[in-house]
């Protein structure tokens, strides 16, 4: 394959739009076999049906294949990025590339989730840029909606059909793509409680806790909501001169926090900030660690630039979330 010649230095990210089992295998079998032959770790994070197909097609070679049922290999984008990094960290071999087939789940997702997964697909080009990873993201055109297929060719620099590689003409620079897919920020209702603008993180987290308690969260979940708001606020307040206004309100199923930062000039937040997990405990605190924690504790965190302002929307699951009962 052409990408073999790029060497193991940086991230290679391909989409594979397949419409049949045969199309899937035409990409996956040579990808896996070439990896085995080169002594490279190969992971297939895809549907159980595709894992079964691939194992059968690889025969004895399937013993070398690492697999993960994709729905559980990082349930949300922030966990997905951690799952990729963990796999690479555990399996990478010096001087060799790591090969990953990564098929996201698209069926049944809400509009907000779909937008976040599209954004992450684009963000991987930035987040994993320095890693010697060759990732192919299969999209099953029999089941994924048209807008997701369009996203595939906008978020991957090239596509693979079998072993044939074609640049994606629609590929969009990740920051621009993320801004385009974000949509407008939600509008705080008139009943929203607010405080600020302030540089005082304790003032912001106190309102965060109060609203979460008012929405019916208690115990651990209340403490985690307070911590998520605090870490998001502290992240936004890090640049000298920053001020944050917090608005908080309830929606069915969620407590919503809007943290709006004004100033300082030129302190733009990357839409992909806070997707990489903190370094091990012996290392220094990373600048995005708190935002990572907020992303991990919240249902979703969205970051938008609005003129000179940065708007971070954090949604915590409400008390009716039965998974957390």
């Amino acid at each position, binding site marked *: 394959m052409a990408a073999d010649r790029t060497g193991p230095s940086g991230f290679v990210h391909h989409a594979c739009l397949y419409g049949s089992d045969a199309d899937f295998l035409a990409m996956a079998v040579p990808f896996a076999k070439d990896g085995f032959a080169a002594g490279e770790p190969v992971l297939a994070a895809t549907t159980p049906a595709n894992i079964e197909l691939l194992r059968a097609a690889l025969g004895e070679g399937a013993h070398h294949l690492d697999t993960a049922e994709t729905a559980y290999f990082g349930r949300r984008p922030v966990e997905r990025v951690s799952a990729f990094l963990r796999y690479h960290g555990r399996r990478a071999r010096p001087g060799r590339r790591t090969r990953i087939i990564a098929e996201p789940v698209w069926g049944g997702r809400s509009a907000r989730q779909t937008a976040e997964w599209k954004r992450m697909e684009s963000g991987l080009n930035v987040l994993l840029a320095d890693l010697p990873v060759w990732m192919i993201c299969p999209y099953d055109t029999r089941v994924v909606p048209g807008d997701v297929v369009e996203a595939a060719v906008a978020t991957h620099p090239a596509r693979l059909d079998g072993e044939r590689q074609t640049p994606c003409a629609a590929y969009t620079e990740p920051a621009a793509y993320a801004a385009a897919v974000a949509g407008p920020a939600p509008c705080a209702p008139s009943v929203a409680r607010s405080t600020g603008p302030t540089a005082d993180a304790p003032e912001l987290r106190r309102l965060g806790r109060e609203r979460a308690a008012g929405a019916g969260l208690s115990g*651990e979940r209340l403490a985690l909501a307070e911590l998520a708001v605090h870490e998001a606020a*502290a992240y936004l307040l890090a640049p000298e001169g920053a001020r944050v206004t917090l608005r908080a309100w309830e929606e069915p199923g969620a407590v919503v926090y809007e943290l709006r930062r004004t100033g300082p000039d030129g302190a733009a937040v990357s839409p992909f900030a806070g997707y990489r997990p*903190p370094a*091990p*405990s*012996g290392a220094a605190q990373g600048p995005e*660690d708190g935002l990572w924690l907020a992303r991990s504790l919240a249902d979703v965190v969205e970051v938008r630039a609005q003129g000179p302002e940065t708007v971070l929307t954090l949604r915590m699951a409400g008390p009716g979330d039965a998974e957390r009962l």
Partner: protein
Amino acid sequence: MDPLVRTAELTVVPTVSPPGLRIVGVVDADSHRHLRDALQSVASVRGGLCLEMSRVEFLDLAGLRLLMTFARARAARHCTVELAGVPPHLLQVITLIGWDTTPGLRLGAAHGC
């Protein structure tokens, strides 16, 4: 025993049996320095050390990292630190980040050392 730290938000008191510290109140950007100094003051205690945390009202991520760094430093000298009475949500965060395997760290009993 006299507190090592006494501010409006944070109190840290040395404990003798077991040797260690009782941390009470809020640890955030305003008090990291105080917590670091208090930890430093017991850094030379040999063997096991206990941090009693059941009355911690708030502890941010950077504060948690201070405790992990302290545990690692103790591990390097073949000593440990037990975190006792850690509020359940902080146990969840420690595990979420993967810091529960930090060398020198013991996550202890729910209520006191």
